[in-house]
């Protein structure tokens, strides 16, 4: 882990929706994984190691169940999480 100890919690199943660069890196637009991360921030760091995502957390936003969330939000069983790389509409 990059810094500190993650808050340890029971493994839970969450689904991940991938867009843009995340979809290309994972070569899929959705997957369900098991994680013991306690917060969204911990989840991203865990996946960054597992899947070698290069984007730093600070450059992203995150959404849970189709609404923006903060990185310190607690992760719940069955959550649908979406990492939002830098946007570029218009």
């Amino acid at each position, binding site marked *: 882990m990059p810094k500190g100890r993650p808050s340890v919690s029971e493994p839970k199943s969450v689904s991940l*929706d991938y*867009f*843009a*660069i995340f*979809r*290309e*890196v994972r070569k899929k637009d959705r997957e369900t994984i098991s994680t013991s991360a306690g917060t969204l921030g911990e989840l991203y760091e865990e996946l960054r190691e597992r899947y070698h*995502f*290069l*984007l730093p957390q600070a*450059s992203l*936003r995150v*959404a849970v169940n*189709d*609404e*923006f969330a903060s990185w310190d939000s607690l992760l719940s069983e069955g959550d649908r999480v*979406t990492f*939002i*790389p*830098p*946007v*570029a*509409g*218009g």
Partner: protein
Amino acid sequence: MFAVVREAIDVTRWNRLVEDDSAGAFVFFEGRVRDNAEGRKVQSLAYEVYDVLAEKEGARLLHEALARFPIARAACVHRAGHLSIGDTAVWVGVSGAHRTGAFEACRFIIDELKQRVPIWKKEFYAEGDSGWVDHSAVGARAVRQP
């Protein structure tokens, strides 16, 4: 009204959505695909959209514009999918009693959209490579990950 569409934007139809008898000023912004970016020749673009959240955030920013500026109506539509040079990628329309509020609101909507709404743009260059546009990146505009 805010919408994400996968077919060509029907500007005439959208113009009608901001008609209002109290309005004397109508400001429209149209963003089109251009053939260059940061000195590179661009052949086409692809927009990827997180539809559900984009439509929520787009509706929120239109409501913010209506609360913040003296305007009557505001609407915005954004394309998703593969676009060619010259295609309309985004359209913003605002109507109001006077031009100042309408200009400012239109500018606010397009600026906020670019920063907040989960839409991503991939540029396909003449050299054959491509990259996701990242306005926040220092020094590197298009990001790639092997």
